[in-house]
């Protein structure tokens, strides 16, 4: 039970931090913010890697392998495409 409560602490505080950080982001950055955040949600890759790495049955291995592929696409693609977008943002003086 202790672990669950600690998890809830982390969840609650991280939500508050997230709200504070995102609230003031200017509309210009909404898309990169979303796709960058989306790449972060690929953090589930850690779980996927553990599942595959320590799997004992074939079922669990295949579930895990599928999870790794999906999460990796999410992480790698998400960060790269966010960077690609952000590279395009310029001020008038930088053109």
């Amino acid at each position: 039970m202790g672990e669950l409560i600690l998890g809830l602490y982390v969840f609650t505080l991280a939500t508050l931090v997230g709200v504070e950080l995102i609230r003031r982001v200017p509309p210009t950055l909404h898309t990169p913010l979303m796709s960058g955040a989306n790449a972060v949600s690929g953090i589930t890759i850690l779980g996927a890697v553990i599942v595959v790495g320590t799997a004992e049955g074939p079922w669990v291995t295949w579930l895990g392998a599928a999870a790794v592929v999906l999460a990796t696409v999410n992480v790698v693609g998400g960060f790269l495409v966010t960077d690609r977008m952000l590279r395009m943002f310029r001020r008038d003086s930088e053109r």
Partner: protein
Amino acid sequence: MALLAQQLAYIASAVLFVWGLKRLGSPDTARSGNALSASAMLLALATTLIAGEVISWTVLLVALAIGSIAGALLARLVRMTAMPQLVAVFNGFGGGASALVAAAEFLRLEASGAQGGHPALLVTIALGILVGTVTFTGSFVAFGKLQGLLPGRPVTWPLQRVLSGLLFVSLIVLGALLAGVGAELEFVAALDGWEVLALLGLGAALLGIALVLPIGGADMPVVVSLLNSYSGLAAAAAGFAIGNPLLILAGALVGAAGLILTRIMCRSMNRSLANVAFGAFGGAGATATADDGERPVRRTTTEETALLLAYASSVVVVPGYGLAVAQAQHETRKLMDLLVERGVKVSFAIHPVAGRMPGHMNVLLAEADVPYDRLLDLDEANPEFSRTDVVVVVGANDVVNPLAREADSPISGMPILNVDEARSVVVIKRSLSPGFAGLDNPLFYLDHTLMLFSDAREAMADLAREVRELK
């Protein structure tokens, strides 16, 4: 000791995630913020690989390689105009991965015969599967709508809300069964754990489809933000399931980010989330054009418009989804350059829900090399219009519809760009057809509004040519 090192590395990567997100909040630091988040992810992944007691590397490395290559190719090759679709797909993949992780954890627990003792753990597993799968299928329906594979208009069916509600309730029941509620009942005991799991996954897949299909195209910014939030929550639930605090932290950050964007989008349409989710708004009738009587509009030509623009002192362009559809962003920028050369003050006014995802227009214009300090948001733009000579509305409709300022219209109270306050307004549009909300737009019939009936891209290219020839 190794465990301590692992936890310390996780804490370091948590700090990097938060710091990265903070730097993502300003245009000057955003790129480095994204890089910080990426390095946080790399650190976390490396730590997990080293400390994770991996026994079967082959499958793992092959899966990582496939995912990396596919992700990199998608990120490089997809056109900027297809960005909403790509974001939807990535969202879906994240949600799907979280659901699979939760499912695998359940199977692992069941194989070890330990599932009976952890009802709270099983609840988080059920939540991970539910939210993750809804994100997965919901995102793919959103993708289908954005890509034009599915109808953009709301798709509804009889008793839609009742059926979705029933489906949701039965998923809660299945989740409870998975957590061991009612295990003493005979018919429950007869079910295998994986049967409940499969039913839960299937039901959640249906729910994701049923929730997004009835939502219309112009409400996509809300849907995409909400799915973004869900993908974070699914990761957090998976974190609870496998007892990993970093998943919980990063998932919660993303959940919060998506939620904020969802709220901003809803507020920009003056609608509640419930109304967006269940209202099946828009396209109810192209018949909503109340009076069929031919109301006079003032037509104009590209020559006339070019003169108007070239001799104006200030011009504000209001882009909408039509600009993206026509891929007119580059032509628009060329026109901007020519006008700026002539000493015209040019800026762009961008409504928060213009386009199909939050910030869609900003990305599109950035791609065409329009500097971001020329882009005004709603609050910056509205005081400018009364001082503006010419407003050019290109591919936008509902976000400039003055009906929003009146009572008794479906879009009443929606904050709009008050373009009618400008000295003259040029609307570039292919026909007089109503916008997404199915409403006629009184703006088109005003005395100082000129209608330029044309494809947005052609019109912009023609205008640029005319302005160039004026020299």
